[in-house]
């Protein structure tokens, strides 16, 4: 159409994987263009980094975990807000080998688990342990590099390693080549349901250009809905832009990703919206794991009023 296009940058939370196929296919199909936005996408370096950069004005919008948004606002008064709840629960999981015989969290009692410094899995694990009735103190955490975690597990130097369930597909593919199979133990199965990935922006963008926020979210919702319904095509478009990703890997993780976006909870709350009790629980978990003041009013870091 003849409308002037706003040039907008969206910072992802990590390198483009199948998790982000909705955004890439949305851009390719013009989900934002028809809302007057010329969207470009840039990789991220973790949610914390994305939040910091959006707060600093590198980009107006970002993809980031809600815990990062909450922490940045609570601890450092960064003027950032989540504007759309993308994942209705977190993909935090424990990966174990089928050959280890472990099938439940209870069996992790006293086991060795690989971990990276500052990893949120470790921060949330005590709550999970409490829920299944094991002593989190008895876990032997083995600090290592992210790239070495899976290697340590498959060489059986540790019994488990925490990952986001979204990455199971290609990780398992690699494990199969080594004659092993990876089993996923999602935190959410223990009732540990906290909100995760959101779209976020700054107070300044909201004040200056609320219409842009609205249009941006309209595009995002349409892109996600289409990608959910046309996963294979979405991945084809994604792989075109990101030749590092293989098509089946993309589909594997997009399939998994979409189950975090479109599910029963979403059907109850509506796409991108939150249920107050789950948000409350999320804040409790984030506050205690990141040592934030529990009494802080977390709603100042959230503004879902621009959702279509």
């Amino acid at each position, binding site marked *: 159409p003849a409308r002037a296009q706003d040039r907008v940058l969206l910072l992802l939370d990590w390198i483009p994987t199948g998790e982000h196929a909705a955004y890439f296919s949305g851009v390719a199909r013009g989900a934002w263009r028809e809302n007057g936005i010329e969207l470009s996408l*840039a990789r991220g370096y973790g949610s914390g980094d994305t939040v*910091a*950069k959006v707060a600093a004005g*590198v980009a107006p919008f970002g993809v980031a975990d809600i815990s990062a948004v909450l922490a940045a606002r609570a601890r450092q008064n960064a003027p950032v807000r989540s504007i759309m709840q993308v994942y209705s629960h977190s993909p935090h999981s424990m990966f174990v080998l089928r050959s280890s015989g472990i099938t439940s969290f209870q069996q992790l009692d006293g086991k060795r688990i690989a971990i990276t410094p500052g990893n949120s899995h470790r921060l949330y694990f005590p709550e999970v342990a409490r829920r299944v009735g094991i002593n989190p103190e008895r876990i032997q955490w083995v600090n290592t590099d992210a*790239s070495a975690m899976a290697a340590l597990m498959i*060489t059986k130097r540790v019994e488990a390693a925490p990952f986001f369930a979204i990455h199971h597909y290609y990780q398992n593919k690699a494990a199969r080549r080594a004659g092993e199979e990876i089993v996923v133990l999602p935190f959410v199965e223990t009732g540990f349901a906290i909100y995760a990935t959101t779209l976020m922006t700054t107070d300044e963008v909201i004040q200056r250009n609320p219409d842009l926020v609205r249009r941006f979210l309209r595009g995002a919702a349409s892109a996600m809905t289409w990608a959910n319904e046309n996963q294979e095509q979405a991945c084809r478009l994604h792989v075109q832009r990101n030749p590092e*990703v293989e098509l089946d*890997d993309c589909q594997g993780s997009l399939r998994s990703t979409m189950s975090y976006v479109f599910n029963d909870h979403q059907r109850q709350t509506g796409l991108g919206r939150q249920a107050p009790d789950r948000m409350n629980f999320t804040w409790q978990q984030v506050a205690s794991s990141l040592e934030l003041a529990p009494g802080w009013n977390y709603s100042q870091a959230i503004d879902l009023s621009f959702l279509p």
Partner: protein
Amino acid sequence: MQPDRKARLIASLPAWGATIALLLIWEISVHVFQIREFILPAPSAIWEACVSAWPNLLRHTLATLGTVLMGFFASVIISLPLAMLIASSPTTSAAIYPLLVITQSIPKVALAPILIVALGANEMPRIIVTFLVAFFPLVVSSVAGLLAVPPELIELGRACRAGRFQELLRIRLPFAVPFVFGGLKVAAALSVVGAVVAEFVGADAGLGYLIQTSMAFFRTPLAFGAVVMLALMGIVLFQAVALTERLLFPWSSSVEGTTTATS
């Protein structure tokens, strides 16, 4: 020239021998000890991964090469005057050196967000990080060379009324040429790793990016392919510096020549 080139060919044989031996040992031990692919893929697996992802690999290699070259040239352009400044007086040296040491002992990743916020998500922060990784050894060896000039030559310069600057340019610098090239060789190798560090910190393309994505998707052989490309790039750059030295400053490399020829 002819026998020279032949001699150099022969001199390079042990390097090739060592490389081939290393590759063979690697390939064999991967099979014998059944080393898992995602820990250390066999050279053959790396080769296959490289071939099948070739256009993509090439694209990333070129992206990195650009950063490497710009970072390397930034190092050269900044380090040489800096070295002269440091060598020119103990006062400037005392003021500048500690600052340089600081740039070396802090992790570059800590600087990355600042650089990106300050300069934008473009090529600039990458070049700066590459520069920061590569320049210091060049400065130190250039300074060492500039200060190693025998006192007689300095006295000769003074007798010819050479000012500080001329002394640096006409006596100290020519004398320091072998040391500067020693530093350039290190800087060439470090530029490569510097560019990768920079890409870990902010890039949508390049071998550092490829390593990260390949690792994330557990395509370890491709990640190692990228590492091999980096190693090749390092060696080619190193040899390019060595060749430049031989072509432009034959007397410099001949210093090695004569001393080793006494054997």
